[in-house]
């Protein structure tokens, strides 16, 4: 045991003797934190150029205020003219232009009394997409409350024969105390019941996945490094039967360091959600990543072959694990081979810690079986 710890210490010493190595680790932390900072800038899936013709129109100005305040799927910019708004769409600076007519409130009143208006809000868009059709729902939802109020007033006039003075007495619309939110959203399928956070940051969310894959990469880089040492005869003093163990130890040291750096990066960038689950799942992930890299690198006889394989494995992992996209269900059996899959699912569903716990003995068993198959030989 003492021999093992001495070796691990020496491996660590070897890695950290170079200031460059420490600087590169710190670089990773800095890049992650910097990226998190950048991702908090205003963003949205669509850019909308808005033009409001009548700057004195209270309704239009109220809508403008709500647009400027709310965080949504859409990002608004306000144009100086209808042509400028349309030009923004033509030049690709905006996905759609919303051009509000003069006297919007009057138009809605007329629509409520006499049917839909001839002149309505003009929407100019590049090409119909699902997101643009969703954006039009949002646009209508801005004006609909005012329209509903106009319908009420029109009914009170036409059906009940009430005058404007009566409205002054009975204008209860403003005071109608209706709870505005009729929906509760939760992400309980495959996870614990939990309300949706108001502010979803789909830009910052892949950071955890990127770092998880980075830990895997570090494991592979460690495997390449120790094999080069082996080729250079630096491990010649060890008996051949111990070489596989030494490779695994070195990979373990690198993965351990990388996992610590990942934890620090996540902590500093403010990404963790539940500290206890985060620490536990990260710890288990470190072990799973270590076993995975030991197992996969064992298939390659030469460091050069392993190196060529790494980029492909990384891109495949990005597709299979929920880093940027959720992979199709039929790929899930393949995804479960990658430890990053369970770790990233853990974030929203702590039950996946159990899968990580199962992954560890399963991977160990495979490694032992594989080493029995190639017993004594150079992998």
């Amino acid at each position, binding site marked *: 045991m003492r021999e093992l710890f001495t070796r691990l210490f020496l491996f660590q010493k070897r890695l950290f003797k170079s200031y460059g190595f420490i600087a590169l680790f710190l670089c990773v932390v800095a890049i992650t934190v910097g990226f998190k900072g950048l991702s908090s*800038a205003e963003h949205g899936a669509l850019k909308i150029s808005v033009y409001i013709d009548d700057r004195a129109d209270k309704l239009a100005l109220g809508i403008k205020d709500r647009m400027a305040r709310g965080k949504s799927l859409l990002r608004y910019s306000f144009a100086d003219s209808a042509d400028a708004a349309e030009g923004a769409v033509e030049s690709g600076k905006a996905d759609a232009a919303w051009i509000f007519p003069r006297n919007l409130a009057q138009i809605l009143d007329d629509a409520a009394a006499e049917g839909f208006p001839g002149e309505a809000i*003009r929407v100019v868009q590049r090409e119909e997409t699902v997101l643009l059709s969703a954006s039009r729902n949002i646009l209508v939802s801005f004006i609909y409350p005012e329209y509903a109020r106009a319908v009420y007033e029109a009914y009170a006039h036409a059906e009940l024969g009430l005058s404007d003075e009566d409205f002054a007495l009975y204008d209860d619309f403003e005071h109608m105390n209706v709870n505005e*939110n009729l929906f509760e959203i*939760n992400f309980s399928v495959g996870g614990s019941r939990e309300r949706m956070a108001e502010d979803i940051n789909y830009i910052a969310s892949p950071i955890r996945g990127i770092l998880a894959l980075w830990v895997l990469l570090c494991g592979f880089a460690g495997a390449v490094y120790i094999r080069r040492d082996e080729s250079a005869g630096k491990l010649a003093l060890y008996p051949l039967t111990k070489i596989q163990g030494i490779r695994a130890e070195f990979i373990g040291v690198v993965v351990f360091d990388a996992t610590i750096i990942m934890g620090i990066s996540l902590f500093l960038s403010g990404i963790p959600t539940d500290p206890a689950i985060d620490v536990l799942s990260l710890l288990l992930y470190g072990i799973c990543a270590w076993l995975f890299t030991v197992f996969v690198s064992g298939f390659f006889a030469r460091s050069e072959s392993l190196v060529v394989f790494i*980029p*492909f494995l990384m891109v495949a992992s990005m597709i299979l694990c929920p880093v940027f996209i959720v992979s199709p269900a039929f790929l899930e059996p393949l995804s479960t081979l990658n430890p990053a899959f369970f770790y990233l699912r853990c974030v929203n569903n702590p039950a996946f810690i159990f899968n990580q716990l199962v992954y560890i003995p399963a991977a160990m068993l495979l490694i032992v079986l594989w080493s029995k198959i190639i017993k004594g030989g150079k992998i």
Partner: protein
Amino acid sequence: MNNRSLSYLRLQYKRAKKLLPGILALFLAFFAVITVVAVVLYSKRDEKDSKVRYRIGIMGETDSSFVEFGIKAVENLDDIGTALEFIQFADEKEAARAIDDNEISVYIFIPDGFIDSVECGRNDIKLICVAHERNRDSIQAVVIRELLYSASTFLTASQCSIFSLQEVMEKSGITGSFWEITDDINLRLLLDIVSRSEFLKVKNIGISGAEGIEEYYFCAVIVIMLSLFSLAANTFFVKKGEGLERQLKFGGVGTFGQVLTEYFSYFCVSFLCLLAVWMTALAIVKSGINKPLLGIFPDRLFSADFFWALVGAVMIISAFQFALYEICGAGIGGMMIQFVLAVFTCFISGTFYPISFLPDIFDTLGTFLPAGIGMRFLLYSGTEGPSGLTVAAFFGILLLCFGASLYGRNKHMERA
């Protein structure tokens, strides 16, 4: 370039020739797998009614005429193009399984008493919209949230209108036609909601953006693959750090010659691999053997413009990765930083999500990042073309990368 440099170039050529078959086989196998997955997904999408974008499960108190009418109205009368399809489920397990299998996007559970609560205006019982935890931070989650907020606004504003009118009627002492008028305004508002597109006059100007989603993904995979390929470039220069650079210099191959010949061989291997992928895709598409592939690889991707864009993209991304490799080396630290920078620069450049989904600062930064320049070259080839600023950035960054590579090589030689 002197004779020694040419000899070194020949040596690099031999090295590349030796490695090319293996790398090429991996490239082709990788793109084949991605294409198969894309074709499966594309075929599945094609099988379904193309107008349906979101399938929504519904369960709970669905036997009310209010709910039935609402579902029929949204499915058949909704004219804004949200294109929803509702599927009724008997129990929660069945609905959860359907979400798990991606058959539906979400399911809405209508709790007992919800209809009463809405009819009375209490709104104290909420509809529960259940989604999968894996979609928690996705764009789909944002879209669903926005659609539900909109639906909520339509319902509650209508409630305000109806209850205000009822209150006015009560205060005015109108009792005889109370429910008749209530039903009338109710129906009027419901019909106005389903035909809400009449508030808008929509004009499609027919500019389809630079790319379709399939083209976008094709270009994105190329850029990501190129950016990460540098991790494999170790195999080209594996002997580095053993004094080879210095020996070459004494042998008459200067720093510039070394960097240029090595970069050239790296560029050639990367380009040849992508060219093989491109030609294979072209051959399959032109043979017409697979219909879904025609959707994934439109004609623009096989134009001369795209070929030159590919050359440009490979040049700039390879130069950046080469410079990184020169500066950071082939060790663990070098690989780490190459990976992190490759992934984050790809992200900032709009490779993982379209650039329009990202903050404006990403767009600005992307113009000056190799992955961003490469992406813009590929996306805009054959249409509007990359902007003048992108082209200027291309040359600037290319020179900067060569400068950095020369600096890195000189430093190596000093240390050797």
